[in-house]
């Protein structure tokens, strides 16, 4: 850690072991399962979503192994269909959606705004229990034979034709939605009402702006998926004739309702990542963010426009040409705020003091992969090319560049950045940089060939495929094995560091932000005294000064 600055702070001389903090304030299973401390709840979430990530990842590994052979190397088509469905359901609803908000957001929102907890601590704990109940239903569906509808649950296949555990899965997703709504509500109220004295809206860290925008989508969007899945359940159980044309329903209606939530949900997954980005880029280049207001308002613009673009998932369903035109133009519009963010992050590096610590490598990887993911979205917003690419591997590659290359990179970058704050320990920096590199290489080798496969016309969700697609599929599978190893390395050294890592100190990165002005791990009440804020966020030019 040659590049870090450890400022002298009061309390620094007391070893972390003997000081009372949120981790050692009380012991025992009960003290964790009944905690209302936002930091402990964040760790409960961290454990649960990490488990779900590796379950979902395991399904992905099986899929990629299967696709090494054109006729399928591993499982029957029915099983393959369950694999991609469970992979999608678990990764989207039980990992990506809660990932950054429920772990880093829970931990950091009160700390970044100088509060002692979220506005509703018990509601916060409730949201974790709701998540666990939802996850239990979905895992039950996996064990009871799995589900094969695809994570999109398209009707009438899901309502009438599938013979798998659709109801338990949908119920799991339905229940988990309430945990998102409660988290969003908690964040909005906390950010409005509990900011430290002097912490005006435009002094907030951009991570808070991103959390705020995400919370708005949580609150407005999640009820729609709940209604949609509820209706799907009614249709499947009682045949009431909403989605099944054989009894007077409309299957396309389901797609409208599903994407009305699920497109904004894409931004639930990426907006928090963008927030993490702004924290990492500024810290490791020691610069104020370039264009603060543009970055802040672009988050809100994305949150709002994201509700108006759902129809671009349905250009080939027979939707009217004119509806297609409107959704196309709105989809281009939502790309602009994302582009503005990328340019601002890049400009922030200019004349900075850039260090190559592990979180920064994840951040730089994010910018590159997110840029590619975003730009390939233009192919799909363009009506004429979407007709060819829709439903192919091009789509798969595009959203994995955003979701894995973007959201997961940002999540890992954030975990590495705040790990010393969360645990009070440092992880081995060399291993962390190595893992970032392995993930970057593995990721590109996995998903770049899929763009080409899609352009060649290989449809997604194919358990078997014509032989001419084999070379690219083998490349993709080879990449996936590298990527899989890349994800296991941080799991090992982060767990190792909890016990054996060097003591981190309150601010190992020399970062600005209120969360760095309290010891690591923080005391249960976060701050001995509520800080008073006198400066803007990312005040890196103010040498050694604190915002308090």
């Amino acid at each position, binding site marked *: 850690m040659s*590049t870090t600055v450890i400022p002298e702070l009061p309390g620094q001389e007391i070893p972390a072991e003997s000081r009372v903090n949120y981790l050692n304030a009380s012991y025992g299973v009960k003290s964790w399962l009944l905690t209302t401390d936002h930091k402990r709840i964040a760790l409960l979430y961290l454990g649960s979503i990490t488990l779900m990530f590796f379950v979902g990842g395991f399904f992905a590994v099986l899929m990629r192994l299967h696709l090494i052979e054109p006729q399928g190397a591993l499982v029957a*088509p*029915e099983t393959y*269909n369950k694999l991609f469905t469970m992979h999608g359901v678990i990764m989207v609803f039980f990992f990506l959606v809660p990932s950054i908000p429920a772990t880093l957001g829970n931990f950091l929102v009160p700390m970044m705004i100088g509060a002692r907890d979220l506005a509703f601590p018990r509601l916060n704990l409730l949201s974790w229990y709701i998540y666990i109940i939802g996850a239990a239903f979905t895992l039950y569906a996996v064990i009871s034979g799995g589900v*094969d509808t695809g994570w999109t649950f*398209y009707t*009438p*296949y899901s309502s009438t034709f*599938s013979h798998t555990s659709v109801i338990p899965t949908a119920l799991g997703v339905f229940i988990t939605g309430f945990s998102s709504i409660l988290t969003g509500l908690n964040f909005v109220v906390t950010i409005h009402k509990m900011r430290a004295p002097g912490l005006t809206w435009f002094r907030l860290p951009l991570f808070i702006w991103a959390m705020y925008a995400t919370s708005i989508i949580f609150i407005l969007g999640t009820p729609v998926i709940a209604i949609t899945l509820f209706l799907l359940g009614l249709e499947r159980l009682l045949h009431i004739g909403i989605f099944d*044309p*054989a009894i007077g329903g409309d*299957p*396309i209606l389901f797609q409208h309702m599903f994407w009305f939530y699920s497109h904004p949900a894409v931004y639930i997954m990426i907006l928090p990542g963008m927030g993490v980005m702004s924290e990492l880029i500024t810290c490791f280049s*020691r*610069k*104020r963010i*370039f*264009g603060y*207001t543009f970055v802040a308002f672009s988050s809100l613009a994305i949150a709002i426009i994201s509700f108006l673009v759902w129809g671009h998932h349905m250009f*080939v*369903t*027979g939707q009217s*040409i004119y509806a*297609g*035109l409107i959704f*196309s133009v709105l989809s*281009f519009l939502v790309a602009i705020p994302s582009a*503005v963010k990328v*340019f601002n992050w*890049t*400009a922030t*590096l*200019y*004349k900075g*003091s*850039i*260090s190559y610590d592990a979180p920064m490598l994840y951040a*730089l990887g994010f*910018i*590159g992969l997110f*840029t590619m993911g975003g730009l390939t979205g*233009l192919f799909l*917003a*363009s*009506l*004429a*090319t979407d*007709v*060819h690419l*829709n*439903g192919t591997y091009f789509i798969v590659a595009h959203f994995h560049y955003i979701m894995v290359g973007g959201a997961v990179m940002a999540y890992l970058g954030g975990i590495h950045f705040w790990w010393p704050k969360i645990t009070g320990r440092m992880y081995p920096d060399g291993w962390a940089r190595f893992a970032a590199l392995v993930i970057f290489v593995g990721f590109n080798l996995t998903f770049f060939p899929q763009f080409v496969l899609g*352009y*060649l*016309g290989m*449809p997604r969700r194919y*358990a078997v495929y014509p032989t001419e697609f084999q*070379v*690219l599929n083998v490349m993709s599978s080879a990449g996936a094995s590298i990527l899989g190893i890349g994800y296991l390395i941080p799991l090992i050294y982060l767990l190792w560091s909890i016990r054996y890592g060097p003591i981190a100190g309150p601010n190992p990165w020399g970062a600005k932000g209120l969360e760095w002005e309290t010891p690591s791990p923080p005391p249960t009440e976060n701050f001995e005294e509520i800080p008073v804020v006198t400066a803007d966020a990312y005040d*890196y*030019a103010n040498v050694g000064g604190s915002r308090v």
Partner: protein
Amino acid sequence: MLTGLMQSGFTNMAAAVAAIPIHPTSASTISDSVDHLYYFLTAITLFFTFGIFTTIFYFMVRFRRRSPDEQPADTKTHMALELTWTIVPTLITVVIFVWASSLYFENSRPPEAATEVFVVGKQWMWHIQHPEGPREINELHVPVNAPIKITMTSDDVIHDFYIPAFRVKKDAVPGRYTSIWFQATKIGTYHIFCAQYCGADHAEMIGWVYVMSPTDYAAWLSGGARSESMAQTGERLFTQFGCITCHVADNTGRGPSLVGLYGKPEKLRNGDMKLVDEALIRQAIVTPNSIILPNYPPIMPTFQGQINEEQVLQLIAYVKSLGTEERKTNGK
């Protein structure tokens, strides 16, 4: 010798790299124009990706931290720069939008002269019918250089009829008719894929388009067992299902005569004006009470569940053929 080995090694490697397909066959009148837009978008993507990557790498090296206590000066937000990188991408997307949309608009309208072919998706096969009579499964024979319009629906779940070589794709939705059109430009055999997940054997729901020279196509049409045309089959079904007892041609039955009905706007009992097209005729067969003409009692029974989508298409073909005869008579 070593050089020779290395050379052959490189040649092998180059051959292996060259063996990776990167471009799909282009075999329709629209596929090249879609590809041109694709290339343009690829160029934009490469330009910005490399631009961002290069800038980041340059900044990483040029502005790397040289001492632990280095303190860079503050930069002010640059309004002109912010506006530039907001407005320039907006303008680029406007260009892409106009290009892509006008192309899509053109590609969505089939030429008047297009020959119709009917496709019904069923778990997990494609049933294809030509108006002249031939029926195929998972195979579609078409003449080269002639516009073909495909009207499709599904008997069960949503499927998607996709011919990558022609760059066309559309969902086959149960309860609806959707359509695509294409004009093949190269004789050959091309993949048909189902591109909407439809259950266990989704990946086996594939077939071939055979693009044939006009003479080969004519031979194919007249070859095999001489089958009746779709309209003739429809006429047979019209009797078989008892439609004929009410829908009498001279308008003396309990239901309206269907002669000359196709393609005309009709006023329904509830006052709506509706064009009599494929979708309306289908609706009238499946849910008759939703399409009642004034002056007729709502007594027609539903045929939902008794008739399959292919038979509906055959009945429609028959009703259409009645329309043509009517127009001929009027023309005399």
